[in-house]
């Protein structure tokens, strides 16, 4: 029964969070983003005290239900395991393995140190929710869009325009390589090794595993009924049941409840501390000490390794964090590169960074105007971000948020150089920070005013000159733009047509 509830809930969360990441047509209402807000690391980074408390307390009561129900990467492994079982002739039998405590805590320390010492990519790489987000956006979404385009092809053939073609292209190759590698590793491990990923690499799994040792309700073995048949052990994808010793390593139990159903003797229960506990061994003391010293030493060297890379190239333009990010630093301090903003940006302005923020900020969202520009009235990225890395903006606030400033290189401008009308930049400028002014006779040329520019990139995107005569220079710290002056209003007198 418990297992059925677990599977049901997990599937609902998993299907909808995946669909929420994939959806580009507004299929799912906005409130589905609550599924991203109950994820551990985003809640932690956005300082959602209540969410973190609920997750911690629920772990202290039920064990790692976060891992078995809420975490999409966790459930994805279960799904993969199921698929693997379908293709397998003989049922896979798991066997108890010893805990890899040193490795587990090393990852936690590295991720945390990265976060504290300005190498946020490390936490981003290891956070399971974000890793899954990247897999969906970089690997699954192109497939999803291809499917959509196939449907579009069929429907349009019959003059039905319900579906429309969407862009299949991958938004960032660096992020794709990372996401695809993560996918391969996770699928490989889930195929044969159950939840090994969660119990070896995942820092959230490690922290929650630590908490779940002290949880109120636990999987417990009734030693009087147990005959050490090992059925539970062979069904334990956490590899945490030692049936011979009738002992469970609770730090690795993901509360899947598979063992309960597998036991013929009814010796396993999910219950409050009634069953007698065998004394746990304290094998890890020495390894803990060794681990701590290595961890401290190795992490001390980390920032130096990454920092050198970040500051190497002065000539590079300042990268632009999406509006609402406050500053590049704020973004780097809070983002874990789940790429929800990348997926949801309707104009494909937000891309996973390659080296724009340096190696330390690889895959973090950066604005690029190669495929589009930031819609003046759009606030989607700020609404969906679960990390508080891109803070919510109202449309009015967005209108005055300056992520960068326009820079005009008149010598490259077609109107000025070739003396033919163009005006594509001013055409796209919502505040007329770029406006066309009279030059020679009928010819107009662009003129810029940085104070009212919001850095939407319309001018840069549309400039037909291959070298771009106009572009946006990013603001490392976002500024407040001045409000543009409105035009003089006029009334028409309806006197005549004028011809």
């Amino acid at each position, binding site marked *: 029964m418990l297992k059925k509830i677990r599977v049901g809930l997990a599937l609902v969360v998993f299907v909808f969070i995946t669909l929420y990441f994939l959806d580009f047509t507004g299929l799912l209402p906005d409130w589905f983003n609550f599924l991203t807000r109950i994820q551990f690391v985003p809640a932690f980074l956005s300082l959602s005290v209540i969410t973190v408390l609920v997750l911690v307390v629920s772990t202290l009561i039920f064990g790692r239900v976060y891992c078995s129900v809420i975490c999409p990467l966790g459930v994805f492994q279960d799904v993969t395991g199921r698929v693997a079982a379908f293709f397998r002739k003989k049922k896979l039998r798991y066997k108890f393995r010893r805990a890899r405590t040193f490795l587990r805590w090393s990852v936690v320390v590295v991720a945390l140190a990265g976060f504290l010492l300005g190498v946020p990519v490390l936490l981003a790489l290891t956070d399971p929710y974000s890793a899954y987000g990247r897999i969906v956006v970089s690997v699954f979404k192109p497939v999803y869009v291809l499917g959509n385009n196939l449907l579009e092809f069929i429907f349009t053939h019959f*003059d039905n*325009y319900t579906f*429309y*073609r969407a*862009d299949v292209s991958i938004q960032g190759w660096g992020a794709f390589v990372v996401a695809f590698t993560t996918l391969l590793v996770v699928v490989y491990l889930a195929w044969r090794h159950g939840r090994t990923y969660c119990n070896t690499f995942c820092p959230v799994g490690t922290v929650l595993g630590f908490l779940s040792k002290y949880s109120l309700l636990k999987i417990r073995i009734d030693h009087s009924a147990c005959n050490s048949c090992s059925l539970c052990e062979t069904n334990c994808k956490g590899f945490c049941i030692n049936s011979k010793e009738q002992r469970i390593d609770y730090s690795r139990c993901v509360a899947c409840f598979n063992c309960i159903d597998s036991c013929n003797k009814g010796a396993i229960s999910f219950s409050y501390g009634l069953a007698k506990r065998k004394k746990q061994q304290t094998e890890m003391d020495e390894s803990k000490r060794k681990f701590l010293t290595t961890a401290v030493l190795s992490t001390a060297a980390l920032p130096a390794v990454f920092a050198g890379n970040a500051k190497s190239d002065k000539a590079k333009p300042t990268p632009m964090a999406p509006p609402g990010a406050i500053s590049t630093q704020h973004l780097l301090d809070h983002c874990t590169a789940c790429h929800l903003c990348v997926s949801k940006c*309707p*104009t494909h302005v937000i891309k996973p960074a390659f080296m724009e923020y340096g190696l330390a900020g690889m895959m973090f969202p950066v604005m690029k105007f190669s495929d*589009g520009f930031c*819609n*003046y*009235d*759009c606030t989607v990225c700020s609404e969906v971000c679960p990390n508080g890395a891109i803070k919510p903006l109202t449309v009015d606030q967005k209108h005055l948020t300056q992520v960068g400033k326009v820079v005009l290189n008149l010598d490259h401008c*077609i*109107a000025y150089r*070739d003396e*033919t*009308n*163009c*005006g*594509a930049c*001013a*055409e*796209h*400028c*919502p*505040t*007329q920070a770029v*406006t*066309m002014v009279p030059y020679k*006779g*009928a010819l*107009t040329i662009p003129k810029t005013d940085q104070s009212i520019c919001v850095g939407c990139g319309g001018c840069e995107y*549309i400039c*037909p*000159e291959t070298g771009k005569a106009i572009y946006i220079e990013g603001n490392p710290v976002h500024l407040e733009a001045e409000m*543009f002056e*409105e*035009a*003089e*209003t*006029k*009334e*028409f007198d*309806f*006197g*005549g*047509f*004028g*011809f």
Partner: protein
Amino acid sequence: MDRRKFLGALAVAGVAATIKANGAMHLMSQNLGTSADGTSVDLVAVMGGEPGAMFQRAISEMGGMQKFVKKGFKVAVKPNIGWDRAPELAGNTNPELIAEIIKQCFDAGASEVLVFDNTCDDWVKCYKNSGIEDAAKKAGAKVMPGHQESYYRQVSIPKGIVLKEAKIHEAILDSDVWINVPVLKHHGGARLSISMKNHMGIVWDRRFFHRNDLQQCIADVCSLDKKAVLNVVDAYRTLKTNGPRGKSEADVVLTKSLFLSQDIVAVDTAAAKFFGQIEDIPLDHVKHIENGQKLNIGSMDLEKMNIKRIQI
């Protein structure tokens, strides 16, 4: 002559009596109607009404929609849906006008009406917030996307001086007739955006235009073999400044007017002169109009035309 006409009509009536209402009869009756009219109207200008009502009046002055849309025709209606702007901001063609045009097409017997534009802002937002997607669908038209290159086909433009070929949206190419429905706007680059400028929404690569003498390319694309059967200029609201997008409602003037003609150069000349009453933009600054006349697409000589000016 009268006798011949009478006999002809009698013969037609006789045939018609034997055939049930069908396309052939429809065409015959229509031919009789127009020849009886005699005078042809080159341009209709209407002022003072609501968008739908002004179009009804204008098209009836031109001889009715059935003169241009025959039974079973596949029609493309091309508004300006370039911007993510509400109708009040006049960045796009008025949705009520589009709805009325679609209705008239169906009333004239059109089998299908397609509406599309190659937008500047995100097309989903443009279609939705312009009110055109809703209005068009309600009127029974199909709303087609135009945001990907695959919707466009390469076509040669033999009369073009700079633009020799372009990728044109398939809704235009596959239609029996198409109706061009621009909105009258100030334009920083082309100076004014009217019927000719609205052609930039039927092509895929607009950057080519901007790179290679915008004003000539606009004229060139209008020399396309498949010309719009009607040009309907929406001047219900006119974007007088900061076009073609506009900054705020202060850029908009309520002008409650509409211009209709088959001659794209004439209708743009008329609309440009009309615009000149609000803001001073000399006609010769809107060079693509003059370039259009040079390509023999139409005439700027309004003096020689039969123009109906109507105040509602």
